[in-house]
Each structure stands twice: as structure tokens, then as C-alpha cells.
């Protein structure tokens, strides 16, 4: 059985050997190199675009908003994101003009020879700052989206609560820092507009192209090239870049490639939404949560883009994996004059779960209850409901997960050791911290119904199998596990199953590769499509293995030249009910659950925090490929530790000023502890062999676990990340200039 086995990743050897062809490696005869002229300030009216007469502009293809055949909009939730600025700019680095040339050297010279004159207007940089009329740019209050989740009657409970604990928590932005920067190629072939590039969601790019060029889906073809990392950063932004490359290619009548260098990529592309979360919690004398009021503000940047759904996932996860009968969660995504913030692993949930998990430690401290015990008393039990009223009954023992994580950490013993150490050592302080958290798999609410994903499993004439989906491999292992699921269902060896390159001329629309949905939603559909295939070939004796292979061959002999295709399309299980208006019901078909524990050592000479040990225990349903799953968890934890401690996006004029790998510090191996990964497996009926989503979960817990550990080590309360050494110094030393 290949599900549950450590099958080596199917794309592994080529990547190891360096023979994988990324988009910038493709050699295209006659290709032009495209580049982008961007706005120099955050907001203002475009007065004039000055092209230096020293350059012979006749050699260049030049595109501005007047070259757009249809609406100047990137198709997304509200279609407000402009492909190219027209009349005004709304954030620094907003694309205004595109140019292309055969010579990359001449392109770079020309990019320096264009000057955009802007008449400045007042800009918004703080989503919670006071608004004057000249700062209003959306509706009458700059709020892109509001969400309210109501459960019970919190106001009444607060009046009689023995304890009310308040807290305010801030999380910074974060850069994806995928190894391969954004890159896209556009050209015409057989009368069709073809776009190839680094992306997560080929059909999102199809939608962007058909909308802006006013074409039908048949007139465009989008092909994913091998993608060197994404983390959400290639969910939304490739739609813009594809449109840019296509505008240049259509005007030039020649293939055009746009490859961002690292600086442009970091400065101009999307990032994680900065978050501001306020908690007010009523607690009884035993530490039980009586009522929670949670106020979430996300900085959305200058355009709506995906912010409403990021806010939605953030709000749904804001109360944590705890039971509370009275809850009000209010969320707002607000405009600022920064480049639009976008999809990033976790999608709003890391921001809100940082807040609730820090707040649990604050409550524990206030009531004099151990942080682990406070969580044990409040974790969801079978039959209880979440903030949206979803009944928790997936059989997972959340208290058992917490207790096993404590044991793996040697939590109690470490706390004693740390206390002794901290009394004796002149400048090193040690502490251990926890986070209990969860992450919903798949699109929120009725999102999967709206996507109506379709997948195909083809039986080839030689008896082999080809899996056709729009799911993209971006380093996370999707190509391997999808093949594993089909091989497992059909009883075939992995070598008999290949996975098609996502090419919209060949694969069906199975939705985007986002939202921790691939294993669970697409995996389940592939099982159904495999069954559909079997039902078409009537194998004799057995429905698996050699019998299937023989029956496929026999079918092709009987039906020469025809396609043998098993199909499946998503239909929401009748047990899942969601009310989009009231934000009530089953927000997700299934959740993954986790307790993580971090041990830290803080150096009071330098204020540097080092994570010295890390236990990551999670329940993710059936683990399809233990090595790949462990890699996902370890990578997410590393990304979470970076977000917590060192990855500071320094904003100047609303954009990232430290847009270099030397000045934006993701952790290197030497900064990371051993990350000890453990799984519990509680199968869900909604996933293949019970698998749930895993990709985003490990981003949610590390930041609160690490900061809770720092607070334990220092006996203080820190409520903002990244906790750079400079910030820790300011926190500990205050205004005293010592």
C-alpha cells in the first residue's frame, strides 16, 4: 500500500541534479525581456512620464494602461486591482509602464531612464490611524471587509464575570522568500495566448487573462513551470505578472519573459498581512472561558485582492481550539497605501492564533494557573461547539495531544531546571512555551462547492495511469502524494502512475493549490475518479493491481483511439452546512490539531533569543508520506520561528525597505533547534484514507510557542512580533537610556 509509505518524491532527483528547467532556464528563440516602471511614492496623481531622449525608444516595446483591451482589472474577489496604474498611484512601486527589449542590458538601462512625476497626496500607513477626509479612498471609512461571528450573549456574561482579562497583540508582515523569484513567459501559439510560469493556480491565471483581454477560456492556455517555492506568494501575484507579460507579448508580436530579481520581488510583490488583535475575556475562578470578545484588524494594503478571505479564515480561527459558549469576533480588513498584502501560508490564522495563544498565557498568569492546565480545562471536547457553532466530533482527543506533547517535551522537569538555571546564571535565561492550535482544511464554508473541482484519472493504452489535475507541485510534494493516492487506490506500483503537468489545455479545473486542500479534497476526488475508471473497465477477479492493468489494456484494444477516463467532481457532503450570511455552521469539513512546545535561551547581553528545542505534535488524519509530511512541519516551524524572532519587514513609505536577503533575516540552519515531529492519526471521512490538510498548520503555532517561552524565561509579557533583539531591549530597558 503506497499511502503511508516513504515514497521518494517524484521530482526529487531532477532537482537534486540541477536538471529541472525553471522558467528562467527556458531558452526561447527571439524572446524579449520585459521590465516594469513603478511609481516612486505611495499616493498621488501621475503628472508626467519622462522618457530620457538619450535612449532610442523605437527599439523598445512600451505598454501602458491604454494598451489594455478590456477592463484594467485583475480578476479576483472585487476586481479592483489595476494591472497598470492610470491617472494616479495608490502605493509605492505600483506598476505604471512596461517595456521590453531583446537585450536584457538595454532593458536595464532603459528602466533607469524613465522618470515618473507624481503630485503627492496624503497617504495612509497605519490601518488604525485617525482618518481625515482626504485620506478616505474606499467607501466612507477605508474598510474593505467586515466580518462578525456571534455566539451566545457575551455582553451579559461580562457583567457578572469574576475575572476579565484584556490584551492586545500585534504581528508583523512577512516575506515569502521562495527561492525562485516570480517569473512569467507569454507568447502566441496556434492562435492562442500561452502563458508559462512559476505559479500555484493556473486557472486563476486563466481567469485573469480572459477578463483583461476579453477572451474566452479556449483562447488562452496556461502552463505551470517547475516552481521553486511559493508559500502563498504565487497564488495571487502571478495573475498580475501573467497579464504584464501577455500585454507586452501581444503588442510586440513576440515572446516576452519577465523575471523579477530578488530586490524587485521582495519590494513589490505581496506579503503577509500585518495583524492587530484585541482580546477581552471573561473567565471563572477555575480558569474556564466564559465569554470572549475578539477584535481583529488586518492591514490589507491598497487593493482588496484576497483580503476578505484572509480576514475570514483569521476570524474563524481567532478563538483558538477552545470551548466557549459566548463569543463575539469582529474583524476588519482596512486600506493602507502599501502594496496589497496577499496569500501567505496560514492565511490570517497565524495572526489571530498568535493573539489567542499569547492571551491564554496572560490569563494563566493572571489567575495563577499553569499555562498547560489552563489549556487542558478549555480545549474542545467531543460534542462541544466552535465559535461558529460547528460541533466538534471528529474523535480527536485534544487533551491527549496536549498531554503527550508535554511528556515529549519533559515540560514539568524543564520548568524546574530552568528556574534553577535562571537564578544562577549571570545573563542566560531559559524558558519553555506552549501553543495549542488548529487549522481548517480546504476552502471556507461553501467555498469548495463554488469551486466544483474536477479531476481525471486516465488509463493509458499500455496499462499505465495518468493523473490529471490543476494541482501544482511547488516543493511541498503534491505530485508525489497525488500519485501515491491513486496508486494506492488502484493497487498499482508508483512507477505505473504519472502526474500530468498542470497545463490548462490538458487538465481539468480542480481549483487552486492553496488552503491546505490538496491532500484532503483533491486526494478524495482522485480516489473517486480511480473508482470511476475501474467501473468503466470491469476488471475480472479483482479491482486492483494486475487485473486493473490488464483490463485497461483490453479496453483500449476494444476501443482503439479512444480516451479511457475516470472522472470525479466535488459535491459537498450533506453533513456539512454553512450559513455565509450569519457566519454560522461548519466552517471547514475537517481540522488538523496540534500542540507545539518551544524551549528558548535568551542572552541578556545581546537580547538574542535562541530556540534550543522544539516539539511539534499534530493530528492531521492519515499521514500519506511520513518523510514529506515531516518536511512540511519542519519547514513551517522554521518559517514560524523566523516570523517570531527575526523576519522584520522594515516599511518605509509603505514598502519594504530591507528588500535583500542580507538585510531580511530568515533563519539559517544554525539558528534552528532540532525540530522533533510527531503525528497522531485520526482519519476523517472527507479525505483519502482519512488524510486532512497539513501545509499551513505548522505556521500557526511556532510564534506563540516561542514568545510564550521567552515570556516564561524573563517573567515578562511580550505581545508583538517579530521580537527582534532591538525590540526585546526596548521592552526590558524601557525609556531608561541604560
Amino acid at each position: 500500500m503506497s499511502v503511508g509509505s516513504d515514497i521518494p518524491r517524484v521530482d526529487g532527483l531532477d532537482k537534486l541534479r540541477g536538471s529541472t528547467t525553471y522558467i528562467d532556464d527556458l531558452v526561447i528563440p527571439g524572446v524579449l525581456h520585459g521590465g516594469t516602471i513603478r511609481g516612486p511614492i505611495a499616493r498621488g496623481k501621475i503628472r508626467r512620464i519622462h522618457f530620457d531622449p538619450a535612449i532610442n525608444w523605437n527599439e523598445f516595446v512600451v505598454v501602458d494602461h491604454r494598451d489594455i483591451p478590456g477592463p484594467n482589472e485583475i480578476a479576483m474577489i472585487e476586481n479592483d486591482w489595476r494591472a497598470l496604474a492610470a491617472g494616479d498611484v495608490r502605493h509605492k512601486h505600483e506598476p505604471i509602464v512596461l517595456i521590453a527589449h531583446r537585450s536584457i542590458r538595454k532593458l536595464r538601462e532603459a528602466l533607469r531612464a524613465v522618470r515618473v512625476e507624481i503630485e503627492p497626496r496624503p497617504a495612509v500607513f497605519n490601518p488604525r490611524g485617525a482618518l481625515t477626509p482626504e485620506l478616505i479612498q474606499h467607501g466612507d471609512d477605508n474598510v474593505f471587509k467586515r466580518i462578525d461571528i456571534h455566539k451566545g450573549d457575551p455582553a451579559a456574561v461580562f457583567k457578572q464575570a469574576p475575572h476579565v482579562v484584556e490584551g492586545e497583540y500585534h504581528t508583523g508582515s512577512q516575506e515569502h522568500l521562495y527561492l525562485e523569484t516570480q517569473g512569467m513567459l507569454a507568447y502566441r501559439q496556434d492562435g492562442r495566448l500561452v502563458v508559462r510560469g512559476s505559479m500555484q493556480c493556473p486557472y486563476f491565471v486563466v481567469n485573469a487573462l480572459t477578463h483583461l483581454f476579453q477572451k474566452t477560456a479556449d483562447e488562452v492556455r496556461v502552463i505551470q513551470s517547475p516552481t521553486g517555492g511559493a508559500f502563498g506568494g504565487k497564488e495571487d501575484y502571478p495573475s498580475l505578472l501573467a497579464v504584464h507579460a501577455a500585454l507586452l507579448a501581444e503588442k510586440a508580436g513576440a515572446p516576452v519573459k519577465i523575471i523579477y530579481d530578488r530586490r524587485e520581488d521582495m519590494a513589490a510583490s505581496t506579503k503577509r498581512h500585518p495583524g492587530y488583535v484585541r482580546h477581552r475575556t471573561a473567565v471563572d475562578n477555575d480558569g474556564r472561558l466564559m465569554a470572549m470578545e475578539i477584535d481583529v484588524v488586518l492591514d490589507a494594503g491598497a487593493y482588496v485582492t484576497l483580503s476578505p478571505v484572509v480576514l475570514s479564515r483569521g476570524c474563524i480561527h481567532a478563538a483558538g481550539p477552545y470551548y466557549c459558549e459566548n463569543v463575539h469576533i469582529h474583524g476588519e480588513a482596512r486600506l493602507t497605501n502599501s502594496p496589497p498584502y496577499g496569500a501567505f501560508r496560514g492565511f490570517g490564522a497565524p495572526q489571530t492564533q498568535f493573539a489567542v495563544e499569547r492571551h491564554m498565557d496572560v490569563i494563566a498568569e493572571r489567575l495563577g494557573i499553569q499555562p498547560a492546565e489552563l489549556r487542558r480545562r478549555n480545549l474542545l471536547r467531543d460534542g462541544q461547539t466552535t465559535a461558529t457553532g460547528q460541533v466538534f466530533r471528529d474523535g480527536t482527543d485534544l487533551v491527549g495531544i496536549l498531554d503527550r506533547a508535554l511528556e515529549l517535551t519533559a515540560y514539568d522537569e524543564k520548568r524546574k531546571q530552568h528556574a534553577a538555571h535562571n537564578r544562577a546564571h549571570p545573563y542566560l535565561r531559559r524558558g519553555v512555551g506552549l501553543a495549542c492550535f488548529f487549522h481548517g482544511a480546504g476552502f471556507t464554508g461553501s467555498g469548495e462547492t463554488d469551486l466544483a473541482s474536477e479531476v481525471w484519472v486516465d488509463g493509458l493504452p499500455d496499462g499505465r495511469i495518468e493523473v490529471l489535475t490543476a494541482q501544482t507541485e511547488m516543493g511541498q510534494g503534491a505530485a508525489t502524494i497525488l500519485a501515491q493516492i491513486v496508486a494506492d487506490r488502484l493497487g498499482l506500483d508508483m512507477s505505473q502512475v504519472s502526474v500530468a503537468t498542470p497545463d490548462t489545455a490538458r487538465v481539468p479545473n480542480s481549483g487552486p493549490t492553496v488552503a491546505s486542500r490538496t491532500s484532503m479534497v483533491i486526494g478524495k476526488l482522485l480516489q473517486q475518479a480511480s473508482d470511476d475508471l475501474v467501473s468503466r473497465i470491469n476488471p475480472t477477479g479483482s479491482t486492483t493491481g494486475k487485473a486493473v492493468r490488464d483490463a485497461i489494456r483490453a479496453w483500449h484494444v476494444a476501443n482503439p483511439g479512444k480516451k479511457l477516463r475516470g472522472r470525479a467532481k466535488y459535491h459537498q457532503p450533506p453533513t456539512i452546512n454553512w450559513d455565509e450570511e450569519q457566519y454560522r455552521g461548519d466552517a471547514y469539513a475537517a481540522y488538523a490539531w496540534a500542540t507545539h512546545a518551544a524551549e528558548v535561551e535568551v542572552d541578556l547581553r545581546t537580547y538574542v533569543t535562541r530556540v534550543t528545542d522544539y516539539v511539534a505534535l499534530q493530528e492531521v488524519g492519515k499521514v500519506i508520506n511520513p518523510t514529506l509530511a515531516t518536511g512540511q512541519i519542519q519547514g513551517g516551524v522554521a518559517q514560524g520561528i523566523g516570523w517570531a524572532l527575526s523576519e522584520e519587514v522594515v516599511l518605509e513609505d509603505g514598502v519594504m525597505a530591507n528588500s535583500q536577503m542580507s538585510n531580511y533575516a530568515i533563519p539559517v540552519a544554525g539558528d534552528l533547534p532540532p525540530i522533533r515531529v510527531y503525528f497522531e492519526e485520526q482519519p476523517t471521512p472527507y479525505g483519502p484514507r482519512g488524510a486532512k490538510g497539513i501545509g499551513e498548520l505548522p505556521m500557526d503555532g511556532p510564534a506563540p510557542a516561542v514568545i510564550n517561552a521567552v515570556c516564561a524565561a524573563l517573567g515578562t509579557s511580550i505581545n508583538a512580533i517579530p521580537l527582534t533583539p532591538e525590540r526585546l531591549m526596548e521592552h526590558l530597558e524601557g525609556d531608561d537610556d541604560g
Partner: protein
Amino acid sequence: MRVLRPTTLNEALEMLAADGALRPIAGGTDVLVSWHDQSKDDLNLLDLSPLRDRLGPLQLTDDFLELGALTTYYDVIASPEVTSAFPLLAEAARQVGAIQIQTRGTWAGNIGNGSPAADGVLVLMAYDATVILQSQAGFTEVPLDRYYIGYKQTVRRPEQLIIAIRIPRRRREHEWFHKVGARSALTISKVGIVVVKDEQGWRVVVNSVAPFVCRCRAFEKALTNGKVFQDSKEIRQLLDTDIAPIDDIRSTARYRATVLSKLLYFWLAENLPQTS
């Protein structure tokens, strides 16, 4: 862009004498990184790489260590003799960028580039290195602690080339290097410090806290006089005359000054308990 490639040292010195705007380049690990932001036409380079044999790796005698103008960080890391005679050179070298940088970047280039954050300059200055400059007129030897006169400004005249670095061999009582960056490797110093005590006295050298890598002479003097520090604030006040840290994209002035004084305080407490 113009690149001149001399085949002999004399030719290199002739070229420098003829064009004072020429910029000598060895490993290129600084010049080529900043290349990205500049108009490439502005670059006017004297490529020294053909002179590797002449400006060769290193020479260790009973009295001194001499590094050539093209000696790389890795040349030092790879020499057990040098590593044992001057341990902080290797310790600092291992923290300069990645191994790719260590095999290309040179000690002389680190001096020539003049970054206030230079890790190589930090240890060389603490070991009392001198810089040997040559022009067509002859040689000059300048102590490294008198080489810089401002941000990226040095006493080197345009026609002079750094041809070697010389470090005296002395008996040392204390030597300590500590670099604080944004992560444990592949990082640029926010604060760097080297403390050396040898037969000629104390040398305390710091980087990233002044327009150039410099000695903390007031603090050295206090150590020489056997001053006892009650706390790190006292050290910080004393350092005010030695350093002038600023806020920039990597850190803040306050952090740099605070951390420097705390590192020194706790080092003294551990190594010279009588002084604190």
C-alpha cells in the same frame, strides 16, 4: 564599464599612476554586490586576479604573519599553523558570508572596501596589523589603526596599492572575538568586538558602531589603569568618547551601544573578576 588586467605588479602600479579613478578589485565580493545598483558604465576596475602568484597567500615567520593582497579568508581557515598562531583570524573568517565568499573575498579587499562593519579589519586591527602600500615611488607601511580617517576614507593615495598586510607575533594573555548579527551565519555585523591583551597592552576594537572600524582608546586606557566597573552603564558612558553608533536598516544606535557595553561588562566579569 572598463576593466584593466595587469600581468605584472609594475604594470598594475603604472596603471594606477596613470588613472587615479581606477578601483582595484580582488575577489569582487563587495564591488560586484554593489554593482547591481549602479550604472555599469561607471565602473572602472583594476583586476588584480592575474597577480595571485606575486601577491600570494601567506607567509608565517617567527616574528610575523604576512598576508598578500590576494590572500582569501579561506587561505587562513585552511592553514593550521596560522589558525593556531592567530585563532581569531580564522574565527572571524568563518563568519564572513558563506564559504563561497570566504574562498573569493580577501583580507586586503576587506581593508580596501572600508566598510564600518568589516569583520576582517576588526581582528586585523586588534592584532596590531600594518598595511603595506606600494606605488611607483616605493613602499609605505601604515598601522591599520591609523589607516581610516572617515567613512570609507583612508590615507591610501590613489596611486598606491595594498600589496600586503603584516601582523606581529606576540605573546597574548587574552583574545576574544564576538560578532552579533541578525542570525548565526550569513550575516552582517550589527556589533562586532575583539579584545586582545598582549605584551604591548590592551587593544579593544569594534565594528558597526562608528564611521569606520576603530579602537576604543578610552576604554583601553581604563583597563590599563585597572579601573573597576560597577555595571555595564559605566562602560557605556566611557565608550561615548570612543564610538558614534547610528540607527540604520540593520539595527539602532541604542542597541549597538547597549550590547557593546554589556558584552564587555560580562566578559570582564568572567575573565578579569577583579575589575568588576
